């Protein structure tokens, strides 16, 4: 180990350093199911979201198999429609939205703040149970026949025409929303009230800034989804005319309400990804993030502007020419803070000490793929192009570059970066790099052809398609196969590392941040002495000096 690596945890009593941690503090099923420890709750979430990720991934893979041939020959149309609907619902509501805040936010955020737990530990456990109740509805729907409305539940199809399990799944999504709200509330209060002495706002790691912005969006937007879904259920069950014109409603009203939540929800999914990226860029370049304040405030800028662009999903849906212009303009503005982040992350590499370890490979992949996802958002925001590519595979490719190329790449970076902290063990580095490479190659092979096939004219949500689209679809399916291997490998080697992995030590990366100043895995109370922060964020020399002094004291 080099001189920049700290192997001792300065805020932990030496006697407990090696022996006691949050994993072996208590034993038994109940000690997990009734835990109020934010770290154990994070582990509960980690298992749950992984299950849903696998389920959603299986749906995706079955779709890609069907799309190998232009004819709809593998599944019936109804089955295919259920596959893409369930893929969307499971991935968005049960994986992407909760994944990073509920796993890494829960585990790392209080430690980063030098706190012993979140502000409301019982509320935190409740949010996991609420999530699981919503998830059970999802599982019941999957088992009892599925739902075929698309994850967007557009009316009047969802309220009057679909005879699948619309009520149960919207109820499930409705319930899960409350889990997000509680998590967001918990984070906001914790960030405001429980920062360690000396940890001022501008000394916060950028992860915290991004989580703060995410929590604000969650708190403000999720209730709108709840209202929208209740109205949908009311119309479907009680036949009260809200969205269905046959009952006197307006179907486009539904789209406004739905996207007023669901566009900010895009930022609920990507901001936590950016949170991880900022941490990893700093850790694997051993450098303060270039333009710290710009990166921090761009998170808030995204959170604010993200509320003003919902109608760019409705350019061809029947809004007026002038509202389309306003929303197109605002959409261009929301691209600015994202561009700021990309430029600053890239600039951080300048004169840095860049490590090519697995998390950093995912980070570099993220920056590249998020850039493509972002600039193709400009295509969709430009009115003249959107009219053509709206509801085509171009859109599918665009949001997968953001959601998979962005959020999931960041999630993978995060899981490798904090795995030693969470489990106390190192993952096998060579396998990590291999899977990062497979994910990158497989991802591009899957989704880049979809930009092309979308512009050529293939509509999304098509079970059967015109023969001239086949070549690009075959490429896409081939890519999905590589991607699947890239995702399966970490499940295997991370599981393997739990038993056979090298012991990680306190700070295997030589990174700054309070989570690297406690032992791995951390004790139940995170720190024995409340840390006093005397250094700026990502200030390597000062942080290392402070660690030394605390150790010596």
């Amino acid at each position, binding site marked *: 180990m080099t001189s920049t690596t700290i192997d001792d945890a300065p805020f932990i009593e030496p006697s407990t350093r090696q022996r006691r941690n949050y994993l072996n503090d208590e034993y038994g099923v109940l000690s997990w199911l009734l835990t109020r420890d934010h770290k154990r709750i994070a582990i509960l979430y980690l298992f749950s979201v992984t299950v849903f990720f696998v389920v959603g991934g299986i749906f995706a893979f079955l779709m890609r198999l069907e799309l190998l041939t232009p004819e709809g020959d593998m599944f019936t149309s109804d089955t295919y429609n259920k596959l893409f609907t369930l893929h969307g619902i499971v991935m968005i509501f049960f994986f992407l939205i909760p994944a990073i805040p509920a796993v890494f936010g829960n585990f790392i955020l209080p430690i980063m703040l030098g706190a012993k737990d979140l502000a409301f530990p019982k509320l935190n456990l409740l949010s996991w149970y609420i999530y699981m109740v919503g998830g059970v509805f999802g599982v019941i729907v999957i088992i009892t026949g599925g739902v075929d409305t698309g994850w967007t539940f557009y009316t009047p199809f969802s309220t009057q025409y679909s005879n699948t399990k619309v009520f149960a799944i919207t109820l499930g999504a409705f319930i899960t929303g409350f889990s997000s709200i509680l998590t967001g509330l918990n984070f906001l209060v914790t960030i405001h009230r429980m920062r360690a002495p000396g940890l001022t706002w501008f000394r916060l790691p950028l992860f915290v800034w991004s989580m703060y912005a995410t929590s604000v969006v969650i708190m403000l937007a999720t209730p709108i989804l709840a209202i929208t879904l209740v109205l949908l259920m009311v119309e479907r069950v009680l036949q009260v005319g809200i969205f269905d014109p046959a009952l006197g409603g307006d179907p486009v009203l539904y789209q406004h309400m739905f996207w007023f939540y669901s566009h900010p929800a895009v930022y609920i999914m990507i901001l936590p990804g950016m949170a991880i990226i900022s941490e990893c860029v700093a850790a694997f370049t051993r450098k303060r993030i270039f333009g710290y304040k710009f990166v921090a405030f761009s998170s808030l800028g995204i959170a604010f502007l993200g509320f003003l662009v919902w109608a760019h999903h409705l350019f061809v849906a*029947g809004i007026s020419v002038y509202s389309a212009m306003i929303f197109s303009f605002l959409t261009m503005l929301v691209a600015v803070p994202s*561009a*700021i982040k990309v430029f600053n992350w890239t600039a951080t590499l300048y004169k840095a000490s860049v490590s090519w370890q697995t998390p950093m490979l995912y980070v570099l992949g993220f920056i590249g793929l998020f850039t493509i996802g972002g600039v193709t958002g400009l295509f969709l925001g430009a009115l003249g192009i959107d009219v053509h590519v709206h509801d085509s595979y171009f859109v599918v490719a665009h949001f997968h570059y953001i959601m998979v190329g962005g959020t999931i790449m960041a999630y993978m970076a995060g899981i490798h970066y904090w795995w030693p902290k969470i489990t106390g063990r190192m993952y096998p580095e060579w396998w990590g790099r291999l899977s990062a490479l497979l994910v990158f190659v497989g991802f591009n092979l899957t989704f880049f052809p979809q930009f092309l096939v979308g512009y050529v004219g293939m509509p999304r949500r098509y079970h059967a398609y015109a023969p001239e689209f086949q070549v690009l679809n075959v490429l896409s399916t081939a890519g999905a196969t590589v991607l699947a291997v890239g995702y399966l490998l970490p499940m295997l080697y991370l599981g393997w590392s739990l038993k056979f992995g090298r012991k990680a030590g306190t700070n295997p990366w030589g990174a700054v941040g309070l989570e690297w100043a406690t032992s791995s895995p951390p004790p139940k109370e995170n720190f024995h002495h409340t840390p006093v922060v005397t250094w700026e964020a990502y200030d390597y020399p000062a942080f290392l000096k402070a660690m030394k002094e605390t150790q010596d004291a």
Partner: protein
Amino acid sequence: MNDFPLFPEQASSVSPLVDGLYLGLVAITGGVSLLIWIAIFYLAVKYRRRPSNELAQEQEPPMALEMTWTIIPGIIFILIFVAGAWVFFRMQRVPANAIEVYATGRQWMWKFQHPTGQREINSLHVPVGRAIKITMASEDVIHSLWFPAFRVKADVLPNRYRTMWFEATKTGKFHIFCAEYCGTMHSGMIGSVIVMEPTEYQQWLAGGSEGSLASQGEKLFQKYACNTCHMDTATGRGPVLAGLYGQSRPLTDGRSVVVDDNYIRESILNPAAKIAAGYQPLMPAFQGQVNEEDLIRLLSYVKSIPAPQTGSALAVESPQSRGTSAGAQPAAAGAATAPAPQQQQQ
């Protein structure tokens, strides 16, 4: 290349504009993305961790640099907005001489009606070099009519008419797709638009039909007994409809409304919504009684009733006459010409 196109056919007057914008954006964003990728790779290799640089060199970010990469992308993004909006306006403004075609979407087919009375399912015949305006509604859920070769698309709603237009620049057969997910056979809700030379198109039009759309509507007008109240003279219990299309009419509640396709539609399906000033809300609602295709026939007829020449009738209550012959052309006359005032419907 036909088996494996990487670019769609350019077959309408707006296609080159959309493609120009698209390729321009591909060049700009592709260039910038490539630069970022190269920068990432170059910096990550050049400054890779070696024993000599275990710690990075810190430097304060120059404010000028931050402002540069905030403001310049901002300006570029706004220019992209302007270009996109400019093309969008060209797509939305319907040329005055467009041929009016009607479309109905339903699970899972497209029905088209020509002013001359022809009906088609999942195919649409149009002449090359003429603007075609499609007025459309859905019978059930939301659909979306997409002509990829023409680069135009619009959602088709169950509660009102929307319009779209295109002018084909190339003869041939092109895809029609439903782009808004609409249930089981969504991917089967497809068809072809057949673009023909004008002479061929005239021959096609000469093929059998049950009389012009307006004359079909006139029969329905009698069948539903509309004519017992909407008479030629102001003695009827309902307003005189002659010459009404495109006019502004006062309502009983003091507002006024321009008589356009959507107002006529609403007045048939739910007449109580807006009552013309001076009349009683006597008319029964036809919601659920008249299907979309018959509605189009009735609409076409109401639009075609010529204004009385003398101007003595109460039909025209507002003096602002919009064009000399609003809706006055006999719709049966060959390739029908649309009424002059084009309502921009969204």
